[in-house]
């Protein structure tokens, strides 16, 4: 059954290839095919979720056993991210009824195919290829508004991203020259013991920096603000919510399986905490809502990185919780902010003109901040607990301080929203229409999650346990094929 999960990657590609031709006959309906495909993907994933169960599965592509061919590794964590990606993509799908270039749908489909490939793949170079696929699709998508600023932002994004990709490729070249393999399970057998010296570290740094570009990791994240504020808001929501978390997922796999060394963890902790602090302070000084959200996104990614860099089960659990929370919440916030593309001071009295939207915004932002009993609180609590358990007290204090800064600018925003003084008529902003439905759905999912909190915690713990189990990963991928070398000679 789980073999059919390969269709997750293949069908979007197939539809993307065919869509420019099909669209001539379907006309305005062509956008609908993508939504149908995503629905089918959800069914596929739901079907496979039960069959995966406790033991992870592996798909051999081309029928070649693990170190030779490409494999897809399927466990609960990957499935979870695939499901969330599908749901968010379905909600954000640009289903306009008229005047949409069919090529926009094509780029969305290709971006999704890249996301699925990156999530599921268990092969270093294959991850690189799909990562490039989603990167190139996102370059096309961020320049869709066709304004001069979006072109410049897109160009800078492309340059940074391509630089990162070159670094990642350099890292892969290093790893390949030392080990002669690119299969992650195979490398997990070799690298931790045999490459535990300066070259292993340099490969790790190159890979982390390379894949960190999309993960909004500290030194390579200065594209975030300009791209997020100039791109189409649905694209921004997808990039900030889903793609950055997928990149973090790759980094998690790397540090768990390939580079489980304390120095790398410390390095990531450092990058993460700098990201949190820089992000929160930049958000504090931001002049408009979109930039504020973009910088807070950097800070949130930093939190996830910190949690993962604890590299304990509790840390991984906290990281997954934070990632899921942010993945559901940030798209909603960006969609709400899509009409407020102006200076913050223009938002005064927003609650008067659009009370529901601002109430939703406040609730979501409070959850982002981590106010009990909203879901964000539980995720942040897990992070603090895991930091406590690892005795990273300084980090804990810094995270709390950053939270205070976050609280400062968010509450300033709320005060503005509920100000009595009303804006003059022509400057008033109203939020309504299509953007609101995905937002309501997303907040509904988040708030419903609260009712199933214990259940959710249990499954998270189980996923974290499965993720940190290196033996299981290696055995699943390589276990049944030890004889392949002799078999063919």
């Amino acid at each position, binding site marked *: 059954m789980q073999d059919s999960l390969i269709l997750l990657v293949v069908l979007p590609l197939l539809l993307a290839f065919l869509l420019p031709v099909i669209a001539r006959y379907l006309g305005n309906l062509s956008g609908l095919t993508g939504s149908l495909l995503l629905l089918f993907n959800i069914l596929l994933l739901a079907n496979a979720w039960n069959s995966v169960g406790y033991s992870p599965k592996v798909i051999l592509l081309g029928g070649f056993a693990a170190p030779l061919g490409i494999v897809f590794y399927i466990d609960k964590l990957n499935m979870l991210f695939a499901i969330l990606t599908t749901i968010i993509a379905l909600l954000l799908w640009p289903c306009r009824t008229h005047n949409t270039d069919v090529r926009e749908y094509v780029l969305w489909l290709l971006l999704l195919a890249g996301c699925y490939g990156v999530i599921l793949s268990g092969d270093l*170079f294959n991850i690189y*290829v799909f990562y*490039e696929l989603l990167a*190139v699709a996102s*370059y*096309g998508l961020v*320049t869709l508004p066709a*304004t*001069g*600023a979006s*072109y*410049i*932002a*897109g*160009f800078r994004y*492309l*340059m940074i991203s*391509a*630089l990162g*990709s*070159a670094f990642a*490729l*350099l890292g*892969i*070249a*290093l790893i*390949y*020259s030392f080990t*002669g393999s*690119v299969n992650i399970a195979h490398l997990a057998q070799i690298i931790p013991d045999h490459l535990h010296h300066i070259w292993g570290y340099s490969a790790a740094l190159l890979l982390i920096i390379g894949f960190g570009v999309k993960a909004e990791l500290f030194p390579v994240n200065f594209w975030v603000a*300009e791209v997020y*504020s*100039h791109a189409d808001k649905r694209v921004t929501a997808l990039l900030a919510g889903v793609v950055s978390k997928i990149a973090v997922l790759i980094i998690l796999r790397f540090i768990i399986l390939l580079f489980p060394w304390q120095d790398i963890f410390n390095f990531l902790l450092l990058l993460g905490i700098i990201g949190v602090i820089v992000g929160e302070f930049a958000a504090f000084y931001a*002049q*408009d809502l979109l930039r504020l959200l973009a910088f807070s996104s950097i800070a949130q990614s930093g939190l996830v990185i910190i949690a993962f860099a604890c590299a304990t089960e509790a840390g991984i659990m906290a990281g997954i919780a934070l990632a899921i929370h942010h993945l559901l919440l940030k798209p909603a916030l960006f969609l709400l902010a899509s009409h407020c*593309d*102006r*200076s913050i001071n223009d938002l005064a009295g927003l609650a008067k003109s659009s009370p529901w939207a601002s109430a939703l915004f406040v609730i979501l932002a409070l959850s982002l901040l981590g106010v009990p009993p909203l879901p964000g609180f539980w995720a942040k609590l897990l992070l603090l607990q895991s930091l406590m358990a690892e005795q990273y007290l300084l980090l804990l204090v810094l995270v709390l301080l950053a939270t205070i800064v976050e609280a400062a600018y968010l509450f300033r925003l709320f005060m503005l929203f509920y100000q009595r003084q009303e804006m003059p008529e*022509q*400057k008033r902003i109203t939020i309504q229409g299509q953007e609101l439905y995905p937002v309501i759905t997303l907040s509904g999912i988040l708030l419903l999650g609260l009712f199933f909190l214990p259940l959710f915690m249990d499954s998270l713990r189980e996923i974290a346990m499965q993720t940190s189990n290196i033996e299981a990963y290696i055995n699943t991928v390589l276990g049944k094929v030890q004889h392949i070398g002799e078999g063919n*000679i």
Partner: protein
Amino acid sequence: MMIWDDIFLEVDFWINIVSIALIVIGIYGIVFSQHLLRMVFGLGLLEAGVNILLVKAGYQKEAIAPIVTQASDTMMSNILAATAQMVDPVPQAMVLTAIVIAAGVQALALSLVIRIYKKYGTLDSHVLFLAMERDRHLSLNQKD
């Protein structure tokens, strides 16, 4: 003198030199040049340097190119003896992929360069950055 002779006659040394030179010059082109087009050219150099390293990763001494040439010789053992002396085909396949990806990315970057030039009439990154900030500022304070 003998030591230097050894180093300079070593194939290894020259391959390292060229890949490092391409990577460093490429990074210089991307990071320090003001002209957008020059950045794209720098990207090409960087990718080329990395590709050399990747091909080098599969190279074997005294090995042959990974193609079975004696087609008439259908004896499996002979073929296996031949393939055992071949260089590693996997990095070559990966470099093939990387070259095509790099070409696609560069073409995309160039199309952006054309668009930027049409909009702003310049390709100087400092000027463009200022122009972008100005646009942003204008759009923030619209309707004032």
